[in-house]
């Protein structure tokens, strides 16, 4: 397949392909910067490839990689829905700053440039803005290349390897005239958020621009929606992000692989188990570790429980957004989530920030009462599940608020890189658990619920059906699970059991090495995607052979899905906008990361 692709690519766009490689099943094509648009259109449109879903764009700064290749590169992760294939493009950029002082993107300094692919995959819009903001790569002909995470007047691009790390003085208003802080300019305190630029096409004279958020009951966190209103009709919505940006990627690059796991919990904080799983499996993919079957089953059970808990938060808050705060549904949902959190507490002591999965297995074995607790939960939950249906599914007011609201057709959704229940509600049965099964999902019988309506109600029914499927998966996994080791026997990855340490010299050495140094994955680049409750959570890892990841990339499903707000909300009412935000199901911790 790869040979055929390369052959065809060479015929179509000669001299574009520099090199290609295979690592852990990931195909990588190295492309010259000047041909990126040609290659992109070829890969998207050619009938043999059809890479119609742009999963991710992220930059790499190779400053400390010790390679002779150009300093900056842009990675494009592509997926073909019809062919079920992934491919990665790596575009080396000609770096204008390389010969200078290599500074951290100060004002006026030329940035490395690459052509934008926004018109080929519209989802590239935000992904390119993020790359520009954090890595300082300019995308030519991008419709609105603004900072997306950092404040508009920020100096420098934090993900660059020469960006100063820590030790920076905290700057307060009173320090404005202090010469010690002169180098910071007006970085932190100067700009109140309303100075943030609005897109040019916004008609601020003829229409009212309403700032929904960053503090608003229905934005589920600190999301600001600059909404252009004609009466109560929404003309255009421009989401503003970054209020909760905490630099997870930068943090991850300065931690050992294992130590990033607790950070995953805090991204999509209503589904930490799924986050952990995706990250842990990305590292396992990089290191090629075999995981015992028992662990796989436990991971599936916990992740499906987490999916139910996450959907409970979604259903509760969605019902609250649509129905008003005193509505009964939210607490009925939170009640059931509470039961799941109790199970998690029993498993690992934490309720929300579980960090239970570790590379190579689980952090410690399951408690004995786990199976009974899950069985009891399933029994109780199926009763409540019925209640949710009674409360909402056929309620005429609920229907009138959701039916036909926020339509996102399949082709629009794919173009915008939407994944998860939103895409399935548009009729595309794309579920990684089914099409590229990981863990033991291929041994479990479940369906991928879809709908063709593509409106908020379709998303509601799809998620409700997913709850049912999750219950099915858990039940099957509980019947199939067999006792076994709770972590891999590979001593290079997982700690040896306690009793071995006192008898075996080798185990003692492994233990010492793992605890003091951590493990060192081989050099290489992998990308792993997990099917989270909200969509695809992608982790990109570039290893330089040390104990820290050289580059850690997180693709949050909420971040990409949120980009569809404008498409879905324009032409509707403010009330519909609230419904739509609820039905996208975002968590701001993951949007801003």
């Amino acid at each position, binding site marked *: 397949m790869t040979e055929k692709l390369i052959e065809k690519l060479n015929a179509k766009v000669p001299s574009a392909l520099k090199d290609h490689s295979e690592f852990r099943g990931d195909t990588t094509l190295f492309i010259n910067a000047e041909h990126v648009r040609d290659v992109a259109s070829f890969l998207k449109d050619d009938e043999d490839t059809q890479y119609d879903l742009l999963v991710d764009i992220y930059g790499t700064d190779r400053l400390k990689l010790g390679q002779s290749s150009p300093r900056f590169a842009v990675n494009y992760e592509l997926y073909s829905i019809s062919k079920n294939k992934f491919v990665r493009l790596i575009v080396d950029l000609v770096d204008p700053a390389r010969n200078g002082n290599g500074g951290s993107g100060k004002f006026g300094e030329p940035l490395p440039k690459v052509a934008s692919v926004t018109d080929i995959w519209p989802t590239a819009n935000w992904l390119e803005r993020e790359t520009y903001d954090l890595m300082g790569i300019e995308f030519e002909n991008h419709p609105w290349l603004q900072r997306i995470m950092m404040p508009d007047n920020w100096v420098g691009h934090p993900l660059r390897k020469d960006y100063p790390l820590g030790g920076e003085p905290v700057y307060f208003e009173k320090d404005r005239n202090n010469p010690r802080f002169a180098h910071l300019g007006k970085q932190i305190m100067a700009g109140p958020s309303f100075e943030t630029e609005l897109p040019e096409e916004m008609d601020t004279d003829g229409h009212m621009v*309403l700032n929904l958020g960053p503090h608003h009951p229905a934005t589920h966190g600190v999301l600001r929606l600059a909404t252009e209103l004609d009466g*109560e009709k929404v003309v255009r919505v421009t989401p503003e992000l970054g209020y909760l940006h905490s630099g997870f990627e930068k943090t991850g690059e300065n931690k050992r692989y294992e130590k990033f796991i607790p950070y995953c919990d805090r991204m999509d904080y209503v589904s930490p188990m799924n986050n952990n799983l995706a990250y842990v499996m990305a590292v396992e993919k990089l290191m090629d570790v075999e995981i015992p079957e028992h662990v796989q089953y436990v991971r599936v059970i916990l992740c499906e429980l987490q999916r139910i808990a996450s959907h409970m938060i979604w259903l509760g808050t969605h*019902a609250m957004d649509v129905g008003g705060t*005193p509505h*009964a549904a939210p*607490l009925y949902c939170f009640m059931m989530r509470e039961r799941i959190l109790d199970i998690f507490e029993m498993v690992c002591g934490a309720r929300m920030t579980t960090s239970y999965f570790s590379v190579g297995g689980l952090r410690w074995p399951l408690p004995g009462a786990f199976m009974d607790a899950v069985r009891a939960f399933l029994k109780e939950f199926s009763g409540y599940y019925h209640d949710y249906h009674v*409360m909402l599914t056929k309620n005429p*007011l609920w229907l009138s*608020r959701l039916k036909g609201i926020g339509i996102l057709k399949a082709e629009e959704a794919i173009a915008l890189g939407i994944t998860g229940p939103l895409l399935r509600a548009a009729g595309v049965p794309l579920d990684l658990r089914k099409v590229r099964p990981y863990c033991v999902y291929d041994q479990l019988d479940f369906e991928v619920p879809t709908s063709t309506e593509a409106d908020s109600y379709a998303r509601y029914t799809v998620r409700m059906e997913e709850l049912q499927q999750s219950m099915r998966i858990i039940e099957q996994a509980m019947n199939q699970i067999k006792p076994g080791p709770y972590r891999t026997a590979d001593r290079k990855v997982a700690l040896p059991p306690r009793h071995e340490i006192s008898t075996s010299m080798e185990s003692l050495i492994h233990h010492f090495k793992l605890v003091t140094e951590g493990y060192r994955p081989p050099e290489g680049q992998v990308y792993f995607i997990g099917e989270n409750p909200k969509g695809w959570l992608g982790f990109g890892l570039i290893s330089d052979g040390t104990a820290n990841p050289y580059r850690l990339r997180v693709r949050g499903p909420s971040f990409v899905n949120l980009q569809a707000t404008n498409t879905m909300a324009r032409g509707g009412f403010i009330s*519909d906008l609230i419904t739509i935000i609820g039905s996208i199901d975002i968590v701001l911790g993951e949007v801003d990361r």
Partner: protein
Amino acid sequence: MDQQLLVDIIVQIIIIGAVASGLMAAFGAMTVVERRVLGKFTMRYGPNRVGPFGTLQIVADGLKMFFKEEVIPSHVDRLVYLMAPGVSLVPALLAAGVVPIAAQPLVLPFEVFGSTITIYPWMADINVGVLYILAVGSLGTYGVVLGGWSSNNKYSLLGGLRTSAQMLSYELPMGVALLSVLLIVGSMRMTDIVNFQASYLGGYLWFIFIQPIAFLIFFICGLAEAGRSPFDLPETENELIAGFATEYGGMKFGLFFAAEYIHMIVLSFITATIFLGGWLGPFSQQIPVLGIVYLLIKVAFVLFLIIWVRVSIPRVRFDKLMKFCWKFLLPLSIANAAVTALVLAILFF
């Protein structure tokens, strides 16, 4: 001046004061009751820490409201901004003026300063009672609209706009629904309406049985007029933060809050009087005190219904709300009134 008249006026003023403070107290009680009932509906406890069963929560909340700092944002239209909560509260209180709570006035068996003291179970038994309720009810709109406009805030503006459209629209079907009752009774006097219900079937010919459609329309419109869920679009905390009240804090917000609850309580009284037979019930003719108990039970039932609706029904979208009013409720109420008139014409021609 005639001494008897003077005493009557004094007694009447005392009654008015008692009713007004009674309504304010009922508002306080209602906030706690509502929170407790909502709590039960949503598997929570509700406020249960202050005093026995949380009853003293009223005092705590009231004190909190009074001691809050008076913040007046710099960008508001001061006069209108300060006036709006009062304009909102007073009509809500006024509407209680024509609601009778018993059939007969109570004449005290002793004389004071040589004058008999008659305690009327109403403040005014005017012959246009229903009209008065409708008129005063629509005045309440002003408070909300003025508050929304004077706040100079986009959320308040949207809330105020929604209010004016919503409340004006819902008055129409409400009036027409009452019309079908008035056609049968032939009087707008509130006591006449109750006495009519008392005079047939041994006092059980309540209008909810004769005019169930009118009752439903009146109840729905009442919810919309009082700005209660699912028609609380002036507030819609999930869309407009707090709608017209976004810029209000402390006791100024408290007055808006009071207006909403008193509106709701008076609405329940009116519903109970017109459609649920007022003070009628077993033995209420023989023992008049029972009548007041029956009335309060009916009022409590209607209030419970309002809370029940709030907790179990999602909010309506604004345009659908207007469509529902103009395309469904209004034609239905007119048809109901027409059928009533036709039936009456056939029966009594």
